[in-house]
């Protein structure tokens, strides 16, 4: 038995769909029917989940720490807004893809800057790019609307058939469909040999290069893909809320995104989805307790998570489910601790 077939066996087993995953998506879909009054917040969560999934692709799988992921979100948001506002592309789905592609082009262009240097340089460059775009958007306020943002965006019906309604029902199912499709694609990507090579790069770039993985090309590819995802998330933001303002580029957005991913856990795709739900719930909770100062508690959560240790935290969270599984099924726990990044 060679080691390579062994690796292939494990990789294939991991790539298989579990019942839990199907149940997860059914529950998400069911939420759309069970809580008809909460479409707006649920759409918000879906957008955030997609955005977090995008960061997970580069952070959890490729190990690139980015402090400026909002750059792509913002570009996607403005692209979608401008396309709709000037009537260039009226069909939302097509506009969504185009906005994603615009962000993707930017991601491709900036990836060459990001793959250079070590963690700190990457942090600075990603942060710098986001700030640069924010400054640009402010500078060209005749196009972007400046601090007022783009106003008066009218969304046309999806495929020319399904109009957006004021309760956000269309928006929710539209976002859910987009999220699910992109999730399927991301799932395919991370379980492919390409995705496995990314993990190898994350664990040890030098060793990965030594066994013949073209490190830089792989990083450029995943960074570009993540930019596409973030752009789509931004475009969804504009399309479902019909506004795009300067704060899409804000540092807080990138920082919050990190928190989302840290709450959910990195490197297993569901982290972003779970994290988005928990983050929004936390935010709601904190802002009902102290409307103005919820940021304090968000900060505290971050500090505590880091001090306790993300791995330990995930073990604690999964302790009860694993115990139940062991008792009932009488076999080894199936809910594994998500692969954490070093």
């Amino acid at each position, binding site marked *: 038995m060679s080691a390579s077939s062994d690796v292939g066996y494990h990789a294939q087993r991991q790539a298989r769909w579990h019942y839990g995953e199907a149940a997860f998506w059914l529950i998400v879909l069911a939420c759309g029917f069970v809580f008809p009054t909460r479409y707006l917040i649920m759409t918000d969560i879906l957008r955030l989940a997609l955005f977090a999934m995008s960061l997970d692709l580069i952070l959890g799988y490729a190990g690139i720490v980015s402090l400026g992921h909002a750059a792509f979100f913002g570009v996607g948001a403005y692209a979608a807004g401008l396309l709709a506002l000037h009537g260039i592309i009226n069909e939302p789905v097509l506009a969504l893809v185009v906005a994603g592609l615009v962000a993707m082009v930017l991601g491709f262009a900036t990836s060459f800057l990001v793959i250079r240097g070590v963690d*700190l340089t990457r942090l600075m460059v990603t942060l710098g790019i986001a700030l640069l775009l924010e400054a640009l958007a402010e500078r060209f306020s005749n196009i972007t609307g400046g601090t007022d943002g783009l106003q008066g965006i009218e969304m046309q019906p999806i495929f020319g058939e399904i109009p957006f309604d004021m309760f956000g029902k269309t928006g929710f199912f539209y976002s859910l469909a987009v999220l699910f499709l992109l999730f399927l694609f991301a799932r395919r990507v991370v379980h492919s040999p390409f995705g496995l090579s990314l993990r190898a790069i994350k664990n040890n770039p030098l060793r990965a290069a030594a066994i013949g993985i073209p490190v830089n090309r792989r990083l450029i590819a995943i960074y570009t893909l993540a930019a596409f995802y973030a752009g789509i998330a931004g475009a969804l933001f504009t399309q479902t809320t019909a506004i795009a303002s300067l704060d899409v580029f804000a540092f807080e957005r990138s920082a919050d995104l990190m928190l989302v991913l840290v709450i959910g856990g990195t490197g297993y795709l569901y982290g972003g989805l779970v994290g988005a739900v928990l983050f929004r719930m936390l935010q709601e909770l904190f802002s009902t307790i102290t409307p103005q100062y919820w940021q*304090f508690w968000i900060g505290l959560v971050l500090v505590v998570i880091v001090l306790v240790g993300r791995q330990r935290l995930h073990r604690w969270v999964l302790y009860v489910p694993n115990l139940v599984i062991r008792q009932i099924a009488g076999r080894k726990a199936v809910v594994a601790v998500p692969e954490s990044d070093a």
Partner: protein
Amino acid sequence: MTSILTNLFDGVAYGMLLFVLACGLAVTLGLMNFVNLAHGAFAMAGGYVCMVLVNRMGWPFFAALPLAFVSSAAIGIVLERTLYRHLYARSHLDQVLFTIGLTFMSVAAVDYIQGSSRVFINLPAALQGQFDVFGVGIGRYRLMIIVICGLLTIGLQMVLAKTRFGSRLRAAVDDPRAASGLGINVPQVFAFTFAFGCGLAGLGGALSAEILGLDPYFPLKFMIYFLIVVTVGGSSSITGPFLASLLLGIGDVAGKYYVPKMGPFVIYTMMIVILIWRPNGLFGRTAAR
């Protein structure tokens, strides 16, 4: 011509201020390779302490400045001993998350205690206004900043170059393992330097209230500036960050004066270009750490 000189003067003052604010971060990043995004929070603490002492308790401005230093240094040492030191061995991601968390907490806490509007420190009359030297307008306050920060820089350089502590610190920066092998208590050196850096940031925060503006969002607004100083200047000496601060200060003031529409655009572009060109900073060592 005179406007160029006035701008140059303002830029130098601004740059000196940035240096005092950021040089603590240079040590944190250089010595322990610790990404401290919360550095601005210490500066803000110093600024608010000074404001409370001067405005509410009627202390003279120059008496409040040392206290701004001491209080920030005290907060720094407490946090270093209780929280920061657990994170030195962690990944950069953990450090970033932790310090972002601290920054958020400090922003909200100051907002809660002091309100969200910008605060001003009542300056003594001697520091207000400006006078002309050969037609060049020199602000008194800015002149004072240049004097104080210039003296501090010379002092720091002397301490680093001439004293025993300075050589220990330089040894620890160059190679922590070899330094501890030689019997240097690296954690202690670091704790002390960290506190001192926080104190300097606090002093800088107190001085900057007049120029940069002091409000609860100070740590977030100027985080990028501190990071630019350190990453562009490199962390192998204090000359690098010093020159980088001057460059940044002059560039920013000139940029705002001559191409006001480009705003901060110039600075960010400069930073990205420099980092691409020399990932370890303009004055840093070429070898990757």
